[in-house]
């Protein structure tokens, strides 16, 4: 037995090596968790399309670390319940990294599962709460709500000098988080908030809440939710003859906002990082050309490009470390400094936060185009 054991152990080791080699196989799997159907479908599909485009480009050049990349998509419908299911599914699929999701709520619901499995995750969710866990697996590829809130407060108090401010949000974790941050930032600048309210996403009829707001005669109505409700809010605001400015947070920046608001879209202010078409970087211009050539449309918004930068940072981490070990890749990503991204230089802080910002305010013109009114 004593003689047998080393042999046995050796053969076992060989077996294990063989098995793990066959499991590791010759592909590297990258997961996409995005709302491919449901109310945020245009954003989710855009993320999925963008990831597949980049992966195709990598595979055409021979893949990564000598292996082809395979994309596994899971539709979380923008809900926390589906996100939890997706997380388990993608873990079982053996992906190395997950791109997404679009909403903070769906991202948060999946975060812990990826962390426990040691799978990298990169999302455009802007809710500040996403980095509070300090998971080494999580990388935010957008900028946090607190950065947008500070910009918003500066624009309202110093730029526009609004005297009576109304802040509205829906019940999602992203929207409440952004609204809370904006309120906090406004109070720090002595902004006068006359009303803070919530609307229920998807109920379509906001006239009752808006009528209440009308009686307060505000200078500005700020909405921190998503475009599906923001467009209707704007339309119903104009319909009720409320003279206030309408300022939408970043998630209102979507072509469907314009369609929903119809003729009322003109004069709306939207706060976001630069839109895809005005990004000054060559790599961004090239990406948009490739995207248009493959899908015959433009990406839904800047958010899919942020996620693409997350993907590119992950792939860059694999290439530079020549490793598939997520711990090694994560360490390299944390050290990343000014990696040339589509949406600007990418630098991650130790807790996974992307550093930077650069918000702008756009005024929607009669032809639905954007004019930059404040930087």
């Amino acid at each position: 037995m004593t003689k047998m054991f080393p042999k046995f152990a050796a053969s076992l080791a060989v077996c294990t090596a063989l098995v793990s080699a066959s499991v590791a196989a010759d592909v590297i799997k990258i997961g996409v968790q995005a709302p491919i159907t449901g109310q945020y479908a245009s954003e989710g599909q855009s993320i999925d399309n963008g990831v597949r485009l980049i992966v195709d480009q990598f595979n055409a050049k021979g893949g990564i670390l000598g292996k082809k990349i395979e994309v596994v998509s899971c539709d979380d419908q923008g809900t926390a319940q589906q996100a939890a299911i997706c997380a388990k599914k993608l873990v079982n699929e053996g992906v190395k990294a997950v791109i997404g999701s679009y909403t903070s709520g769906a991202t948060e619901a999946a975060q812990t599962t990826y962390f426990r499995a040691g799978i990298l995750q990169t999302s455009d969710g802007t809710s500040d709460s996403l980095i509070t866990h300090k998971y080494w697996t999580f990388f935010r590829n957008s900028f946090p709500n607190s950065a947008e809130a500070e910009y918003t407060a500066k624009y309202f108090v110093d730029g526009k000098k609004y005297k009576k401010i109304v802040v509205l949000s829906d019940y999602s974790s992203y929207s409440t988080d952004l609204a809370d941050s904006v309120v906090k930032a406004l109070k720090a600048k002595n902004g006068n908030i006359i009303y803070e309210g919530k609307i229920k996403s998807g109920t379509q009829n906001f006239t009752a809440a808006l009528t209440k707001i009308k009686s307060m005669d505000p200078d500005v109505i700020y909405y921190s939710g998503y475009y599906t409700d923001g467009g209707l809010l704007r339309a119903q605001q104009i319909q009720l003859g409320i003279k206030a400015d309408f300022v939408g947070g970043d998630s209102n920046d979507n072509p469907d906002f314009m369609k929903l608001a119809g003729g009322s879209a003109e004069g709306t202010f939207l706060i976001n990082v630069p839109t895809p078409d005005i990004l000054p970087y060559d790599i961004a211009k090239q990406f948009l050309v490739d995207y248009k050539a493959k899908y015959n449309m433009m990406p839904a918004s800047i958010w899919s490009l942020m996620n693409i930068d997350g993907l590119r940072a992950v792939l860059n981490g694999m290439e530079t470390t020549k490793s598939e070990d997520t711990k090694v890749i994560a360490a390299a990503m944390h050290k990343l400094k000014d990696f040339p991204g589509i949406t600007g230089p990418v630098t991650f802080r130790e807790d996974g936060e992307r550093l930077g910002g650069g918000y702008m305010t756009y005024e929607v013109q009669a032809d639905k185009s954007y004019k930059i009114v404040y930087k």
Partner: protein
Amino acid sequence: MDIFLQQIVNGLTIGSLYALVALGYTMVYGVMRLINFAHGDLVALSAFVGLTVYTQIFGEGITSLVAVIAVFMFTAAIIAVVGVLLERLAYRPLRTAPRLSAVVSALGAGLVIQNAVMLIWGPNMKIFPSEIFPSTIWEIGGIVVTFTQVMILGISAMLMVTLFFFINRTKMGTAIRAVAIDQDAAKLMGINVNRIIMVIFIIGSALGAVAGLFIGAYYRGITFDMGWMYGLNAFVAAIMGGIGNIPGAMLGGLLLGLFNAMITGYISSQWAETFTFILLIVILVFRPTGILGETVAEKV
């Protein structure tokens, strides 16, 4: 005061949409003692059919009232046919089966319609063109009323009054009431019960279709699963007014819309649904048959 009046206008608009949908629930229940859970999904289907008819057949950009009326009539006709088919396929074979089987069949039919809408039109939100109705806005002493709101209020009121007289003043209406009271006795009097049920489904579905089109024209964004929310609210309205009772459904719908607007306006939108269901419970505790429902002696 203007705020109060404005909330009444808001409430009446959404309330009359609920009332139109509630009529479909209540008429079917009155005649067949069946909650037609697929009705809300017919409303959603109508919005999608209407949008397709409008953009494909008439072409986008047509604002003439004649074309819009044609779209409404055509869509209502299609939905009425779907309603009749629904009754033929999902309810008629179960007419003598235990009531629970029919309810399960109704829930299933609702899922079938909802998923069919998703498969045909896709899971994304579809958006109605803004020029269906002129964007005229009237401001009367601080109260804002839009052209679309006037259309919704006017056409709903017209349809409901017509329905009321149809049920109470015509021969067919008398037959419907007879079938509602006692199907077997009605049969003995020479009434074709199958035909009456068909008429009920045609009217109920067509009214739901009009509501669906108004939802599309007024709120613009339509999703395949929106039937559930409008269906649930309308169902609550039908129960409040007294299910099976036609004026009750109209009253229930308007009350529900007004109540919702007032809670949102004076308390907060967070509480609107909670208070709606508290109101429903209170009504059911003190008047189990609903506001206008009559206490009918149980047949022994």
